[in-house]
């Protein structure tokens, strides 16, 4: 028998290890179709914003600055849940065996991880944008500089949680990983001053809070409005991103070696 004449003259390896925007677009669409994900990144943060920021009217209503403050906090909360969910999607895909299916394609493991991070960042973007739009439509007035800088800080610093999501995703191969992670995120959000101002906590707690991973993101996102741009906050974001990324990378190596 002779070789079948069904092949192109030369078979090529795809560029960028198979990374491409078509796949990325399909991924994002799939994630945004998930009702539970939408609930957590679109509905809840806006709901909390209404609850904490807009429910009280009349003389006891919070000042416009506090309403804006709460809006930024809820945007950070939405972004951290969104990016964590995006990263933690690897847990679902591993438990379903999709990762194994992808091993049968040209997609390189590193390109897969990059796509996961970018998908997570898109979810984070959607979360921040939703809360900011809801805020703008409900009378939040801040300087354009604050809109832009707070948006960018809340969104870009949520990279730390994309890394966290990946770390958890490679740690726990479970379809229900977000059920474990959700409550943990709520506690971390508290230490990040997202639900109550940090100054309302006892001094010991305030010190501890500085070492938790939401602290930096929260500080930096609120800084354009109220100040507080400190090197501690920058270092906090950088250090946690680095730690989670290293952790995710080590687990990822173990994972690809085993499959």
């Amino acid at each position: 028998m002779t070789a079948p004449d069904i092949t192109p003259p030369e078979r090529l390896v795809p560029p960028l290890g198979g990374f491409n925007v078509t796949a990325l677009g399909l991924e994002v669409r799939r994630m945004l179709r998930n009702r539970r994900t939408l609930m957590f990144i679109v509905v809840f943060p806006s709901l909390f914003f209404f609850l904490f920021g807009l429910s009280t009217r009349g003389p006891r209503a919070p000042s416009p600055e506090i309403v804006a403050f709460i809006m930024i906090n809820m945007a950070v909360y939405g972004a951290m849940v969104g990016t964590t969910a995006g990263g933690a999607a690897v847990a679902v895909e591993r438990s379903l065996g999709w990762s194994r299916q992808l091993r049968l394609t040209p997609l390189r493991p590193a390109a897969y991880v990059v796509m996961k991070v970018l998908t997570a960042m898109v979810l984070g973007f959607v979360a921040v944008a939703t809360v900011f739009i809801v805020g703008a439509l409900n009378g939040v007035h801040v300087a354009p500089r604050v809109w832009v800088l707070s948006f960018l800080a809340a969104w870009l610093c949520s990279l730390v949680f994309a890394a966290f999501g990946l770390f958890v995703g490679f740690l726990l191969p479970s379809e229900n990983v977000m059920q474990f992670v959700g409550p943990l995120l709520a506690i971390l959000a508290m230490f990040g001053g997202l639900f109550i101002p940090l100054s309302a906590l006892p001094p010991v707690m305030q010190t501890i809070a500085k070492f938790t991973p939401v602290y930096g993101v929260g500080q930096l996102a609120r800084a354009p409005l109220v100040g507080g741009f400190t090197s501690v906050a920058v270092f906090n974001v950088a250090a946690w991103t680095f730690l989670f990324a290293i952790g995710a990378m080590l687990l990822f190596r173990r994972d690809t070696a085993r499959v």
Partner: protein
Amino acid sequence: MEPALAVDLRNLTKRFGPVTAVNNLSLQLESGEIVAFLGPNGAGKTTTIDMLLGLTRPDVGTARVYGRLPADAIARGEVSAVMQNSGLLKDFTVRETVAYTASLYAHARPVNEVLERAGIGSIADRRVQKCSGGEQQRLRFAMALLSDPRLLILDEPTTGMDVQGRRDFWSAIRKDAAQGRTVMFATHYLDEADAYADRIVLIRQGVVVADGTTAEIKNLASGRVVRATLPGANLDALKVLSGVTHVEVRGEAVIVNCTNSDIVARYLLTSTDARDLEISSMNLEAAFVALTGDDAEAVEVSQ
């Protein structure tokens, strides 16, 4: 330059702890062959295929696909596979799953074309979650067709399917194989091997125990089985008799597979103390059991 073999496995060995899943296995496939990789559960079929696809690293030995390392062959779309334990994303539609996979290749066939060829064009917009096992398997098949691979690997592709599902799946494969693709499929269904392969490789405990054309394997199965009670039988004397293909001992009984039962029966009744002699004809099922049973010995049929 000599054309590269579609599959070239040399001296593959893989151990999992104390268990040797694949034991010094060598196998060569020419381009265009349709080969059934047949054996009972746990014979080492999936482990061998995993090594052929680079999903598992062999402890010893080498695997090449069209002269390339497995990972490189996959990256270039030379080989693709339908695996029994690979997953699908439940919240993608059928079409999205194929489009996603297509985007990962340097060159891919059009999505609609592979959907049609796999016979799932009509359910393209259905969520994977809502697809039956057979439909999901044809979806995996559609994904495997995207790169127009020169070699297609199918690992127990019809496990868990109902009769109709199996029939639909094989009719899609058969239509496709007519184009001259090399196909290697693992199965433990004899009828599938018989109906779709032109070569059968029988594997047991990680070792190839028989390798031949379907006709040769059937020949092996077309003989007769002579069974007699004979404690302390002289196996070597039986093995050298004309037409004897296989001898084994079960308790006090000796079982001889052969092409000429008269010779064996005459020998047993005249030269030994054998009693309770029975002669029965053997089918493919019996050959399979004889070759893959726990106490079977290796037989070479393709000389």
